[in-house]
C-alpha cells in the first residue's frame, strides 16, 4: 500500500518534471539554449501564452508561434516584439522581456534565434 502511494507520487513527480524538460528537436547552438530559456517558467515562460512545437499544456492568450520567418522577414522586428511588445500594441498583455530586464540581452538574443527558427 505504502509502496503504491510512493510509486504514484514518484510518477507524478516525473510527470511534473517532464513538462519542464525540453524535448529534443534538432535546433543548433544558441537556438537550443534559446529554447530552454523560452520554456523555462522563471525566464521566458512563453508557453504561458503561446503554443510552441514541443511544448506541453500551452496557454492560448497569444497566437501559436509558427512560420516566424514569414511573419517577421526582418529579424530585428522580431527582436523588438519580444523585447518590448508594447511598441506594437500599447495595451498588450505580453511582458516586455528586454525593456524590464526579464531576460538579459544575451538571453534575449538566444530566444530570438530560437523563435526565428520556428
Amino acid at each position: 500500500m505504502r509502496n503504491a502511494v510512493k510509486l504514484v507520487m514518484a510518477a507524478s513527480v516525473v510527470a511534473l518534471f517532464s513538462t519542464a524538460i525540453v524535448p529534443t528537436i534538432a535546433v543548433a547552438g544558441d537556438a537550443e539554449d534559446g529554447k530552454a530559456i523560452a520554456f523555462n517558467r522563471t525566464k521566458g515562460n512563453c508557453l504561458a501564452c503561446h503554443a510552441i512545437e514541443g511544448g506541453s499544456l500551452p496557454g492560448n492568450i497569444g497566437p501559436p508561434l509558427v512560420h516566424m520567418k514569414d511573419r517577421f522577414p526582418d529579424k530585428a522586428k522580431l527582436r523588438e516584439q519580444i523585447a518590448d511588445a508594447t511598441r506594437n500594441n500599447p495595451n498588450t498583455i505580453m511582458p516586455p522581456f528586454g525593456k524590464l530586464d526579464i531576460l538579459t540581452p544575451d538571453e534575449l538574443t538566444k530566444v530570438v534565434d530560437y523563435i526565428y527558427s520556428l
Partner: protein
Amino acid sequence: MRKIWSIVAVGCLMGIAGSAMANPDDDLKAVQKFFKERFPDVKTADYVNGVYALDAGLREQWQAIEDFPPYEMDVDAGKKLFETPFKNGKTYGSCFDNGGIGIAHKYPVFDAKTNKVVTLEQAVNECRKANGEEALPWYKGKIAQVLAYMNFTARGNIIKVEVPNDAAREAYEQGRKYYFARRGQLNMSCAHCHIDNAGRRIRADLLSPAVGQGAHWPVYRSDWGAVGTLQMRFDGCNKQVRAKPAAPQSDEYRNLEYFLTYMSNGLPLAGPTSRK
C-alpha cells in the same frame, strides 16, 4: 478583429484613459455587456462560480469537491467564535445590524465618518477592539472562519455595495485604477488577465471574469490548505506578476476590494466556497 474592438470598447468605457470620474453603474453595465458577448451561454447568476461557470469539465470536478465542502469545519468553527462571548460578555452580534446574521452581502461599506472603505474583516476586528479584545491576524485562521460563518448566513442574498457620496466615488475610482494599472516586472494589470483574457488559458489555468470575483469569499484552496480572504488572493495574483503586494487592509486593497465587489453587484452571494 472583433476581439480587438471589444477590448478597445471596454478600455474606453472603463476609462483607463482616466478622463472623467467613473460612474460605477456605467462601468458595471459595460463590463457585464462585454462578458455577455464573450460568454453568451453563461447565466448571470453563474458568474459567482468563476471558471466553473465557463468549463463543464472543471465544474464537474469542483462539484464533486463541494459534495463534502472542505470549508464546512471552518463555518462551524466560525459560528462558535461568533457566538462565544468576549471577556466583557458581549458577542460579535452586538456590533452589527441584525446581530451580524445575513448582512455580509452589503460589505465592503463606505464609512462617512472616516471617509474610508470598511471591509467585513475590518468590521470584525473593530468589533473585537471595541470590546477590549486583540485584533485577529488578517487573511486566514480565525478571521477567515468568522467571515466564513457570516457569509454563510448571507448566502443567496443579492450583493449590494453602495457608493453613497463623492468621497466614496473617489475610493471606487482608486480601486478601479488599481485593477487597470500595469504592475510588476511582468507589467500586467488585473484587467489584462480577468477582463481582456477571461475565458482564455494562461498555461493550464483558465482565467475567471472580473464579474463574480468578489462574490464568493472566503475561499478554501487546496493550495492554501485553509480558508482565506479575497485580499489574500490579491497577494497571490500580485506575486504572479512579480509585483510587491500591498499591505493587508491598506487603502489600496480596501479600494480594490470595493471596486471589485461592486462589479458583482446584483449577483447572489456565494461564499464560502472552494477553488483549486
